[in-house]
Each structure stands twice: as C-alpha cells, then as structure tokens.
C-alpha cells in the first residue's frame, strides 16, 4: 500500500477533545484550548502535552452535511447524506491554520472505519459512532434520518468520533485512519485490502453465545457487569428524559393558546384591552421558547448516548478477553488430553477413551510398530501444543495488560466527560429558568396594568 502524503515522516498530533455539549463543537477543535464547556480546560492541555511527540498539530472538523442521491449496490436510486471532513494543520508559531485536506464521506464509510479499528485493536475501547437511527425520541422530535436537526446532531457526533480517535494515543497513529482523512477515492478498497474482515473473529459478533471460561480475569468480569449496568441505567435515563421533554413541551405550548384568546378578548374590553393584548404576546413568547430549550437538551442527550454506546465497546473488549481465555483453556485442555493419550499408549494402560482404543478392542490389537508411530505423532503434536500454549499465554497476558491500560484511560475520560455533561445540564436548566422569570415578569406587569 502506497502512502499518499508528501511528507512520509509526518505524524498526527492527537487533537484534544471538544465536549459535545459545547456549541462551538461544530467549528472544530482548536489546539489552543479556549472553547471548552464548564470545567476541565486544564486536563485537555495535560493530555496534549503528554502525547506531544509530534511536530505539527492538526485540527479535524466535520463541517458540513449535504443531501445526495446516487445508485446503491443494487443499482437503485437512494438518498443519503454526505459529510465534509476538513483537516487543517496548525502552524506552531503564529497559530494560523491551513486547510490541508478536505473530502466527503458518508455514514457507511465511518462504519467501515470503525469495524476495521475493532478488528485491529481488540484491546482498545474503540469510540462509538453516533446512532444510525434516531432513538429515544420524544414525540415532537422527528425520527426521520433526513430531518435537518437530526443531521446536524449527527454531524457533531461524527466529528466527535473522529476527534476521539485523533486524541487516542494509539489509534491516532493508524494509517487507515490517516487515509480516511486524506484519501478520498479508493479508500474503501484500501481498507478491504487489509483483509480485516477475514481476521475478524465471527464469535465476537455472536452476542448470545456464552463461553464456559473457567478462569476469567475478575477485572474483566466486573467490567462486563459495569458495562451492562451503565447501558441499562443510561437507557432508562434517556427514556424518562424523553418523556419529561414531551410533557414540558405540552406545558409550554398550551400557554400559547392564551395568546390567541387574550388577543380576541382584548377587542371587547376598553380598560383591560391593552394589558390583555400585551400579556398575550408574552404568552406566545413563552410558548415558543421551548423549542430552543429542548433542542439544547438533545445535545445533552447525545452526550449521554455516546456513553451508552461506549458500554458496547467495553463489552467488546471483555468479550475478546473471554474468547482468548477460552481458546487458551481449550488449548491447555487439548494438550493435557494428548499428553495423557501418549502416556497411556506408552504404558499400555487405557484410561482415556479413544476411538482407536475402541477399534483395537474390537478388531484386535495393533502392532508395536503402529503404536510407536502413533506415539511419535502425538509427541510432535504435544511439542507444537506446548509452543502454542506458551505463545497464547503470552498473548493473553499482553492483551490484559494493554487492554487494562486503555480501560484506565477510558475511565478517566468517562468521569471527566460525564461530570461535564451533568454540569452542562445544570447550565441549561439555569438558562431555562432565567428565560422563564423574564417572560413571566413581563406578563405579570401586563396583568397588573389591566
């Protein structure tokens, strides 16, 4: 595979994270951190300096979304949304950024990238994609994928996805990721050429299969429980939040009806007329204010959703460990039984059942030469098995070590992000209350003048 970039030495600087809740998220993550939401500016900078091996810094943004029509694999017309990814490199000295790459990708390409990363980095908690279809919607919100608000939030979610990868110490160095940002044509072919689909363990996808693992690492078992709990509690929270949003919408909108009736009533009132009319106007303002309020809350919901999907990524790592452990135990078991067979053949005692043993019993004993041959084969297999077991053990330990390192990193990220999200929720509530006080104070003044 050819490397496309002019400068083969050029490495990627992990770009710091832009919190989802921040309204500037769409404008890209500036390396010089200033647009963080409430809280954690310092830790963002710290992460950067720790990973600051690279010479140049980059900014990644998903800046636009566009509706397109094309032909799909079955040659049928389809409509889809394409997203513009822009990469800028930031000059150290003057902080100016230069656009270096710009290309369009659709959601399915993001999925392909993620699936590739899952196969090649099974020990990493791979950042999740924003949801494919709108879920946890409250009734006024559209569940339509083409709805502009949904597309906008997805754009932000995709940008966040890329930023998460770019700021991950290991993932950011991946070539396929780099090409995703820079190689417009042929990228899909390049990914598929890695043959990652073949490497993928189909058992990882079999969510329902349980493997009888005798000695799993307790930390992973606990982590699996945690990820189940996290998924369950966030789902629950999102569902209730959607219902609360629905109800809140109702309360605000009904007040809008006052506006109309007050206005009509004011026509027949001499003294009360003006007060009624202007109070009615404020009721209209109140009723329409809920739309923006709830749109902001959707961003908060998206922040939670990211961690809902992260639970799945955590489970994937646990699963991988389970499978490795299972394979290890199976290999050890297989080796042990072969050793036993060998021993029995050598000493002539038959303790283990084997088909050969049965046939010999039925059709007569085998010759010493035959037996010798079999022992030799088994000894070779045992040797091989021991080598394999050794390497599997090593693999397993490496995996646990690396995975656990990433999990620790993930935990810290999660704590920071969730705390920030909860704080941003409080900020939203405060803004809503201030608006409410404003509107009702105005209305009260109008009423008292009636």
């Amino acid at each position, binding site marked *: 595979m050819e490397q496309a970039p002019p400068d083969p030495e050029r490495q990627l600087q992990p770009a710091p994270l832009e919190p989802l809740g921040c309204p500037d998220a769409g404008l890209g993550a500036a390396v010089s951190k200033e647009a963080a939401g*409430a*809280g954690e500016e*310092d830790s963002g900078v710290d992460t950067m300096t720790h990973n600051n091996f690279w010479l140049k810094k980059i900014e990644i943004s998903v800046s636009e979304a566009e509706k397109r029509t094309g032909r799909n694999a079955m040659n049928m017309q389809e409509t889809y949304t394409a997203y513009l990814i822009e990469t800028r490199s930031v000059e150290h000295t003057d902080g100016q950024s230069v656009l270096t790459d710009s290309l369009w990708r659709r959601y399915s390409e993001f999925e392909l990238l993620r699936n590739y990363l899952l196969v090649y980095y099974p020990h990493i908690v791979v950042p999740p994609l924003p949801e494919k279809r709108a879920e946890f919607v409250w009734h006024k919100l559209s569940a339509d994928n083409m709805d502009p608000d949904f597309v906008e939030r997805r754009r932000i979610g995709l940008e966040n996805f890329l930023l998460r990868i770019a700021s991950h110490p290991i993932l950011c160095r991946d070539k396929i990721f780099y090409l995703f940002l820079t190689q417009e044509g042929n990228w899909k072919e390049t990914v598929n050429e890695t043959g990652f689909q073949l490497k993928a363990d189909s058992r990882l996808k079999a969510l329902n299969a349980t493997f009888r693992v005798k000695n799993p690492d307790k930390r992973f078992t606990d982590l699996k429980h*945690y990820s189940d*709990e*996290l998924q369950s*509690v*966030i789902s*629950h*929270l999102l569902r*209730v*939040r959607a*219902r*609360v949003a*629905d*109800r*809140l919408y*109702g*309360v605000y909108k*009904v*007040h809008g*009806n*006052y506006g109309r*009736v007050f206005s*009509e*009533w004011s*026509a*027949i009132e001499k*003294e*009360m007329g003006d*007060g009624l009319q202007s*109070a009615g106007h404020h009721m209209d303002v109140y009723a329409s204010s809920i739309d923006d309020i709830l749109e902001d809350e959707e961003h908060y919901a998206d922040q939670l959703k990211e961690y809902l999907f992260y639970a799945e990524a955590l489970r994937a790592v646990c699963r991988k460990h389970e499978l490795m452990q299972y394979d290890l135990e199976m290999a050890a078991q297989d080796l042990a039984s072969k050793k036993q067979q060998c021993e029995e053949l050598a000493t002539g005692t038959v303790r283990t059942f084997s088909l050969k043993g049965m046939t010999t019993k039925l059709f007569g004993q085998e010759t010493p030469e035959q037996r010798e041959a079999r022992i030799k084969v088994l000894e070779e297999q045992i040797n091989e098995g021991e080598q394999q077991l050794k390497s599997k053990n090593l693999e397993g330990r490496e995996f646990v070590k690396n995975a656990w390192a990433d999990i620790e990193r993930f*935990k810290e990220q999660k*704590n920071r992000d*969730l*705390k920030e999200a*909860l*704080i941003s*929720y*409080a*900020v939203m*509530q*405060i803004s809503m*209350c*201030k608006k*409410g*006080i404003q509107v*009702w*104070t105005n*209305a*009260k003044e109008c*009423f*008292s003048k*009636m």
Partner: protein
Amino acid sequence: MDMNSFSPMMPTSPLSMINQIKFEDEPDLKDLFITVDEPESHVTTIETFITYRIITKTSRGEFDSSEFEVRRRYQDFLWLKGKLEEAHPTLIIPPLPEKFIVKGMVERFNDDFIETRRKALHKFLNRIADHPTLTFNEDFKIFLTAQAWELSSHKKQGPGLLSRMGQTVRAVASSMRGVKNRPEEFMEMNNFIELFSQKINLIDKISQRIYKEEREYFDEMKEYGPIHILWSASEEDLVDTLKDVASCIDRCCKATEKRMSGLSEALLPVVHEYVLYSEMLMGVMKRRDQIQAELDSKVEALTYKKTDTDLLPEEIGKLEDKVECANNALKADWERWKQNMQNDIKLAFTDMAEENIHYYEQCLATWESFLTSQTNLHLEETSEDKP
C-alpha cells in the same frame, strides 16, 4: 381557620385572594361575615348527601343574634338562588357551582370535588353579602339563620313548582319578542356577554389543560431524579455529582407541585366562576327581555285594540315602571359586575404569573447552588494537584 379573625376579605388559603371584591360601599362598614366549612356526610334510607356548616357573624340590628350556625345542603343553596332570581330578575345573582361535573369521572363524594364545591359555596354567600341590594334580602337572612325545620316550612310557602314552570314557559315564549325592541345599550351588553362567554369558556379550558399538563410533567419528573441515584451506585467517582443532580431534580419537582396547587387555588376557581357568571348573565338578559316583552305585548294589544282595552293604560303604566326599574337595576349592577370582573381576573392572572416567577426562581436557585458546589469542588481538586 381561626374563628375570631376570619372575614371574607381574608384569603381562605395563602394564595387565594378570591374574596377581594371592591365595591362602592364603604369597605370598613362591613357588618356581615360568613364562612362555609366542615362538609359532613349524611346517610338516610333514601339517600346520601353532604351538608356544609355555615357560620354567620353580624352586627346588624335586623338579626336576632350576632352569631348563627346552621347546616345546609346543596339543594338549599339552589332554593336560595331561585328565590333571589325571583325577587330580583335583572340583578346579577352570583353563580352556584354546578350540580355535578359532567366531564370527567368525578364522583359526588370525591374529596377534591367536595372541597372545590365548598369553596365555591363560600364564595357564593359572600358575594351575596357584599351585594348592596341582595345583602338585605329576606330569604337570604332566613337561609343564614333558620334552623332546619324552620327553613323547610318556609320553603313550602311561595309559588309552587308548577307555577314556576309556567313562568319559565312564558318567559321563553316572550323573550324573543323582547329581543327585537331591546334598547341600544342592552344590545351592546348582550354582544359583550356573548363574546365574553366564548372567551372565558376558552380560557377555562386552556387553564384546565395547563393544570393537566403540569400534573403529567410532575408525574414524569418524579421518576427522573431517582434514576440518577441508581446510576450513582455504579459510579465511584461520580457519586456526589449524581446524587446532587438527583436532589436538584427532586427540589424542582416539589416546586412544580407548588406551582400546580397555586394554579388550582388562585386561577382555576376564578375563571370557572366567571364561566358560570357568563351563563347567569345570559339568563339575566333573557329575564330583562321578558319583562320588556310583557310591556310590548300590552302596548301592541292597545294599539291594535285586540282585547278589552279599558284596563290596559293602567297596566301599561305599571309595566312601564317595571321595565324602567328592571333596566336601571341591571345597568347599575352591570357596572358593578364589570368592575369586579376586571379586578378578579386581573388578580387571578397576576397571581398565576407570580406563581410561575416563584417556581422559576426556586429552580434557578437550586441549580445555581449545584453549579457553585461543583465549581468549588473543582477548585479544591486543582489546588490539590498543584505542586
């Protein structure tokens, strides 16, 4: 309620200032104080019904005593209203709460229903007491003071049910004629009443709907806080933050409950009373029209010499007086009613606005203190990290 310091002027509940009626008479010379309370259930072989205790305190000479306590049931109130309408057909009699709620599955003996009715009955009697003419009505006095058996025997006197029905039939028949000759000012009044009735009915529906939506919002919010507590059980590092969020949500929940109860005490009863008033007003217009119709038919008879016309001029004279009286009474009462209506509506909506402001202020304070505590924590943490 403190029996020594009550008055219809004092709110019966903290936010309900439903009884603040301004009237042209000197407010300081109020000499009749009425309360309605203590609903009690009575069971007989035939029926079950509720009575309300009515306590009257007065310094008026025409009352035999200065304090009275009686028990009355809804039927008795209906009787009183009927008598007042009879005696003063073109005065705006205060409305009674409905017999039973048609919409919704409210049973007659449901606690909320009884309480709402009690408050409305209290209002009814106090409005009569504050009315410059009705307050001196004899039947009103008997209603407030007579013992049960006295009231029963008094009720039996006066025009019977059949004659009253006959009156109603005649009224309907002749009211149409009255409409044709309605003076300009009463045409205007009628237009106003029609439009007002439409609007107040809409406002009543909107207000009820708001209450319902707020209640449903409250019900959902109740579930929202506890989920954060549940979550905190699996997050060591976020326990405090999550628990704090949960408690903020719970406090906002309580604030919502308070807002709801404010709405149901201050706004809903007032708006609903005026819905009933608007129906009452249409009745008053009809009665006025009917009185005029009586006159008009006699005048017509005289003009076209349909019947024996000897006694007609005298009758017509009496009827002309009657019409003039009725019209004047209505005009005066109309002004008074309009003034009261404006004050009541103004107050009710101002209260509602105040409730909402208070609600948002409480929630604001809650979340702001959460933010402050989080910022303080953060500052503590970062100062610990510094070398």
